[in-house]
């Protein structure tokens, strides 16, 4: 494979943004372990505390790419913002019932209060989980709590009966006696993706290729190294609570791959039905194969 | 009748005590009008504030019509230097304030009195204005109206005309004396002007430097004399008073 290492011709900085969540671990490791440098890539990795800030920066042109989700990419495309999915990440979203909610399985969730964030992959995952269990979205009371720490806290204090949470919040909820009712991963969907603007793909394709090569290296490293060796790095960069030290379990990560078209189509249909998007989108137009190999 | 017996006042400000007045003893018969003059800071306003019930922390005794002075029981008119009108009340609400607070019903008698006072002071037409829309002289007249309408047992005035210019001042003084002659309300007023004291005070009380005590009380035969300032006696009396002032308010 043609590596750009050594060719020092006007390298551009790649600006990449993500929320502090589990999916960003490979990027953080690649940065810390120097994998980007090895690929000759100069990266500016921005970690945001809220999705809105990330979106604002992305839209304002301060970022070339982000970790987002399929719903967000639909929204971008719907708003004529040409963003392409270039890969999948292994972030998962879990539906956890509170210890005192009386919910033991998906059957008990009817009529209960579920904390989500609206018009996001979180709501999408909840709806998909409900439908898989022969329920409809109307069967639960959706309670909007955008901030994830607050969503977790409302679950812990029984203000809501269940909550849809990403890692590490879901693990914390389960540690407190919460019951895992289902997850996106259990349905073999991986709604969390990496995406770049078409503009960046056109102007910085070499850099993006280098980015994914480093990503794959990081995946190899993570899969083959005990967590304890890089635990501190991710605690610092990702926003894991300090007291999870020694208890972090990472899923087996996959090297970069594009999500299945059917999966994207399902998200498009959902968003269309919800009225979140108006345009007729085509999964083919939403992905781009950068072809690293 | 107002009786003041060994009155003295001490202010407590920031831990140190300031004796501001006293001891002062005097007696004002019903229907008299007294002028008080004294150096700046000698306690003239303090005295009026005691008599008007604003300062309640004093030593000595103050009796009005043989009862301990109490603004809730007695009816006391008070005209401060800045006229004491409330800017948020119309002229009418301002001069009716006394009746309002005392919750007096307006009977035939009072209504006549109101008409007479307003007419004399020529402020009928200002009824609906706010004090800010009045000249100094007009404000003064409204303030006088407020006190005369309530027919007080005692009227107190603290430099009532000093904020007015020369001409307006003489007009206001004459209006006041006109009304006063009608109602003969027991009155005590503070002034910085010898002229005013002679023109308006049946008796003139001279107070010493702080803490103020009474230096002398003078009978004033020139009270309410027309063309006062052109009389020979005026010159004498005023130069006598001036002499006391020059000697630092001592005899």
């Amino acid at each position, binding site marked *: 494979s043609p590596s750009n290492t050594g060719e020092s011709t006007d390298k551009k900085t790649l600006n990449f943004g993500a929320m502090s969540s589990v999916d960003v671990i490979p990027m953080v490791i690649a940065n810390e372990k120097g994998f980007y440098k090895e690929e000759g890539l100069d990266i500016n990795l921005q970690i945001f505390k809220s*999705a*809105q800030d990330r*979106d*604002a920066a992305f*839209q*304002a*042109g301060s970022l070339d790419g982000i970790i987002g989700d399929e719903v967000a990419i639909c*929204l*971008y495309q*719907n*708003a*004529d*913002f040409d963003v392409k999915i270039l890969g999948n990440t292994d972030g998962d979203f879990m539906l956890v019932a509170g210890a005192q909610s009386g919910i033991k399985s998906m059957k008990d969730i009817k009529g209960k209060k579920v904390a989500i964030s*609206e*018009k*996001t992959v979180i709501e999408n995952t909840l709806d998909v989980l409900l439908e898989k269990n022969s329920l409809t979205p109307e069967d639960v009371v959706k*309670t*909007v*709590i*955008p*901030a994830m*720490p*607050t969503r977790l*806290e*409302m679950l812990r*204090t029984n*203000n809501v009966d269940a909550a849809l949470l990403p890692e590490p919040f879901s693990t914390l909820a389960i540690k407190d006696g919460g019951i895992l009712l289902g997850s996106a991963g259990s349905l073999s969907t991986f709604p969390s993706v990496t995406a770049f603007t078409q503009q960046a793909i056109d102007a910085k394709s070499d850099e993006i290729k280098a980015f994914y090569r480093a990503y794959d290296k990081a995946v190899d490293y993570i899969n083959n190294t005990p967590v304890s060796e890089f635990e501190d790095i991710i605690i610092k960069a990702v926003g894991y609570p300090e007291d999870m030290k020694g208890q972090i379990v990472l899923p087996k990560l996959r090297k970069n791959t594009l999500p299945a078209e059917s999966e994207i189509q399902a998200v498009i249909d959902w968003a269309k039905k919800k009225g*979140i998007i108006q345009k007729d989108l085509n999964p083919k137009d939403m992905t781009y194969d950068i072809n690293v190999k | 009748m107002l009786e003041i017996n060994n009155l003295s006042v001490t202010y407590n400000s920031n831990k140190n005590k300031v004796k501001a007045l006293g001891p002062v003893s005097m007696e004002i018969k019903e229907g008299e009008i007294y002028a008080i003059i004294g150096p700046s800071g000698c306690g003239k306003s303090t005295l009026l*504030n005691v008599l*008007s*019930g*604003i300062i309640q922390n004093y030593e000595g005794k103050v009796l009005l019509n043989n009862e301990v002075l*109490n*603004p*809730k*029981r*007695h009816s*006391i*008119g*008070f*005209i*401060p230097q*800045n006229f*004491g009108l*409330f*800017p*948020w*009340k119309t002229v009418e609400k301002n001069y009716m*304030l*006394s009746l309002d*607070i*005392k919750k007096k019903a307006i009977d035939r008698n009072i209504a006549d009195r109101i008409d007479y006072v307003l007419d004399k002071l020529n402020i009928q037409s200002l009824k609906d204005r*706010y*004090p*800010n829309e009045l000249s100094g002289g007009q404000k003064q007249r409204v303030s006088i109206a*407020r006190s005369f309408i*309530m027919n007080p047992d005692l009227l*107190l005035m603290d430099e009532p005309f000093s904020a007015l210019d020369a001409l307006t001042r003489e007009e206001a003084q004459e209006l006041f004396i006109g009304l006063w002659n009608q109602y003969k309300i027991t009155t005590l007023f503070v002034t910085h002007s010898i002229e005013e004291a002679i023109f308006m005070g049946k008796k003139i009380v001279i107070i010493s430097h702080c803490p103020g005590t009474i230096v002398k009380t003078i009978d004033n035969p020139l009270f309410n004399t027309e063309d006062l300032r052109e009389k020979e006696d005026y010159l004498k009396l005023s130069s006598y008073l001036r002499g006391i002032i020059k000697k630092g308010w001592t005899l």
Partner: protein
Amino acid sequence: MKKAIKKISIFLQGFLMINILWYLLAYVVKLRVLPSPIEVYLNIGQYSENLYANVLASLYRVAAGIGISLILGVSIGLLMAYSRLWNKILNPFVYFSYPVPKTALLPIIMLLFGLGDVSKIMIIVLILVFQIIVSVRDAVLNIPSDTYGPIKSLGASIFQRFAHVTIPAILPELLTSIRLSIGTALSILFFAEGYGTQKGIGYFILDAWVRIDYKGMYLGIIVLSILGFMLFIAIDILEETLCKWK
């Protein structure tokens, strides 16, 4: 009314100028985050009925928040002004609470007051009440003591002094403080309406932001500004009615 009409005309001029500037800026940067005002206004139809309900919901929260803040703030402010003891007790508390970033307390407020309107109103109250307390207390203490002279000499009761002097004397400051509160309360809607509700102009803006619907978002901002302005005008009219003497 004169003052109100003048303000409306200033507002309209400002509105026009901002729109022109906005148009030019949008024309220069040509980015989706900054749609031109024309695009925004052309799209107004699709939101219109929606907007109405949102404005009402926010108005209710703002009004309740300001109302409660006023009741609490005025009572505590008066208490502190009249009683040296209470001033001594409460002053340090007020003083310390002033710079505490109340928005950081959102999680606690949600836990204590739930996800409903109560917690939204409470956060507005928490932010406004201290400044109302301080301004009422200072306004009362700033009334020159000789203002009370004439009414004291009439033997007025505490209550009469209060009604005839204290209240009218602090009214202008109180209205100014309400005016400032309105601005603050509206900008707090952003936090308050971010959770547990599907109604409110703050929600409308946040929702549009999430959906990357910048036209909707700017429309919401414009509506919020106009709402703020209308509340300002309402206060102006109230001031002209209550403070005729000014």
